[in-house]
């Protein structure tokens, strides 16, 4: 089948999609956007998190056909023209990245959290990110990164 959608602001059109493919597969294997990761492919780990029409979803659980006409943002679409998004910078600086396989999912999920709640408590951070698994860090530095990102974004808003 043919799939048309918008990904990271760009119109995409791909042919020959098998109906059983997931949005994750199409992003990774047909649109050259492998940033969303394939760790469990059953919605348990959050590594494939993307925005689908503004909603945070596991792209492994979205059938490709469900994305027809949709507006999708992946981790590749979060960086700004002048460099990394403040959330991405915070993950690097706080030491929240080790192997990094979970990181794209955490970055997108953190983005979703901080647009809903600009100043989350530690418990709110942990609850919001409970759908994302990390096996390397023990999560301490991920919590640090989310706090750092929230501070940076708050500073940006004040300066704007």
């Amino acid at each position, binding site marked *: 089948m043919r799939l048309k959608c918008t990904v990271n602001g760009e119109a995409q059109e791909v042919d020959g999609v098998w109906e059983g493919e997931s949005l994750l597969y199409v992003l990774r294997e047909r649109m050259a*956007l492998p940033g969303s990761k394939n760790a469990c492919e059953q919605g348990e780990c959050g590594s494939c998190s993307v925005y689908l029409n503004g909603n945070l979803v596991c792209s492994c659980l979205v059938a490709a056909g469900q994305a027809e006409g949709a507006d999708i943002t992946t981790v*590749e679409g979060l960086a700004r023209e002048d460099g990394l998004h403040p959330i991405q910078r915070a993950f690097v600086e706080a030491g929240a*990245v*080790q*192997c990094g396989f979970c990181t794209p999912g955490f970055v997108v999920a953190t983005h979703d959290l901080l647009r809903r709640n600009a100043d989350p408590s530690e418990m709110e951070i942990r609850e919001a990110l409970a759908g994302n698994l990390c096996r390397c860090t*023990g999560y301490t530095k991920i919590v640090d990164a989310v706090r750092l990102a929230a501070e940076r974004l708050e500073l940006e808003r004040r300066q704007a």
Partner: protein
Amino acid sequence: MTVEQAAELTLTPVRSGVGVSVPRPDGTLKVSGRYAYSSDLWAADMLWGATLRSPHPSARIRSIDVGSARAMQGVHAVLTHNDVPGRRTYGVERPDQPVLAWDVVRYQGEPVALVAADHPETARRAVAAIVVDYEPLEPLCDGDAAIARGARKLRENDNEVHRVRIRHGDVESAAGLADVVVSGEYEIGMQDQAFLGPESGLAVPAGDGGLDLYVATQWLHVDRDQVAASLALPHDLIRMTNAGVGGAFGGREDLSVQIHAGLLALATQRAVKMVYSREESFFGHVHRHPAKLRYEHGATREGDLLYVRASIVLDGGAYASTSAQVCVAAASFACGPYVVPSAAVDCVAVYTNNPPCGAMRGFGAVQVCFAYESQMDRLAAALDLDPVALRRRNAMAEGSVTPTGQVVRQPAPVNELLERLRARPLPLAPPTGGRDPRELPGGVSNTTHGEGIRRGVGYAVGWKNIGFSGGLDDYSTARVRVSAAAGEPLVEVHTAACEVGQGGITVQAQIARTVIGIEHVVVLAADTGVGNAGSSSASRQTWLTGGAVEAACRAVGEELLGRAADRHGLDPRDLRLRDGGVASADGSVVATLAELLDEPAEATREYRPRRTTPLDENGQGDVTMAFAFSAHRAVVDVDVELGLVRLVEVATATDVGKALNPQSVEGQIEGATAQGVGLAVMEEIQTVGSRIRNPSFTDYLIPTILDAPAMPSEILELPQPDAPFGINGVGESGIVSSGPAVMAALRMATGRALERMPVRPHELAGATAAGGASA
């Protein structure tokens, strides 16, 4: 060697040298989704590989019919054991595992056939179309049963992979002197590494008849040797590059897709990509050995340990993997970091039809720590002593002798680690009324408002080896090249050390900057174009590859001083690298680096730490290169009505020698601690009749961010003799005692004996909390 000594070559201060929390060089790529993991690789016109695996844990293969699979449209190859041109078996220590099964299958999930097709779904359907006629056999499901009299023999001789027998001191006499004797039987379930990046890779056939392999691995050179043997190709025709690794933790020491993707690529003369699903990953790598451990400790009335008897059975599953080395480690560390005058340890790793087990972070030291620390608590209770006081009374120190007769010639701050943890204030018990459910066992499931909650506090201390043990020739290699790039000096570091997330590439660059005094350092991709680095395991890579990088940098620096000396008629011993040039003793600049680098300077060096020896027939020998010591204090809240647990805090104290990158050191300790507590409260591959019941992240649980406790860490830096910069390995020590500390805390909260890890809710529910405190 200290930082000051190492830096004597250069007088140039660097911003991002050793001792600084330099950010990872691959961090930007990883946060933006542009880092190329092994599952992200792509080649024009590539095919997808898939594996047919045995549904039976034990069966004879009567026949394999690939006809209908081969006839399917889009299928380019279907291969069986008949298509393996070279050695039909492989193995990281001994080649006993079939590349593709013939005659028999020995575990559920054993590879039987391979497919290459133009779409992964086509490959899956072709796999399903292969017809294998099996004659199922009764599987051997239990380690104890495997060595019982009359057990069915899974191998020609017997079912033992390896046995270690340690006899130290005089246990019989000591037993006669003991005032108090405690014994226990402990059991540990099978833990999975559960790295997030699935096994995957890309094999590309080359014009010279060879193969370029891009895979996620822990040890390129040993992979290459096994691939070359099975493909019947000379080593130099197999070029391996470590693709981006999504975590390892020991699970990538054994091969997964390497030979299979290579076979398919050579058969089709097309690039072939293989990516395991999560379910396949549970069958596609080895796990931590389940263990049964029977212990007896004898002590004086005052609490001095007199002897330990230990009998340990490690279930190695269907193939050898690294079971022999795990067995050596478990036996060597079986008595804990204590002064034990007499010890009798018998440790055996056995073959069964369970999933193969091998390396996982902690490597034998984890299983025994649970047993000896449970015993120490039991002994403290029998003696009516404080558990920490009992441990401190018997703590090993520098100069102590281990049960293998090895003198510990390095800092062994067991006492100090415990003291540090004891001195930490305990987290406050929150008020009982109106508590946030997220701070309670059960969390947002809202199963309690604070009633029925008991708090427990537990301590544990552990030890393990750094580097390969038992006389193996352990070494690493580094090539360092300094050149002028656009007029500026550039250092390139090339090793085969696999970056698996631990930050090896970060510290290699830090070492190079500090030694040569040049800020601009690039670490090249790890591949087989440079000498063997050994495995990214055994907490060894920063020490060994770091040592090789340091030596190569020193050689290159001396080459540059020599060039300046030759060209200016000076004695190189009077010269130092300084601020982009070479300076004489009075500080005057003799030459700039740019003029000295008209030709790049390059050196390759191997680094070998002190040799170890094998164990003799009594299990005696200097088997361990170096020791790591670590302790934990766990604070838990238990809902004794439902058996639910909340980990409040798990504090760590660790000696790291020298923290080359403090943030990375903390990351290793926190991550390892979290994996250890996962083993205590939730993680287990459950098998019934040797079949895995829970091969998914829905059913095999690892800690989420809501499960993970606060993990404050106390980091001691007691310089390790003979190590580069005085470092000690830090990759594993955090996992050894974190689970046992949690188990001790759960015992205090519930009053239950809890002899099995992981603990299950029904073992906690209904406890009267005899020893616990109301939280």
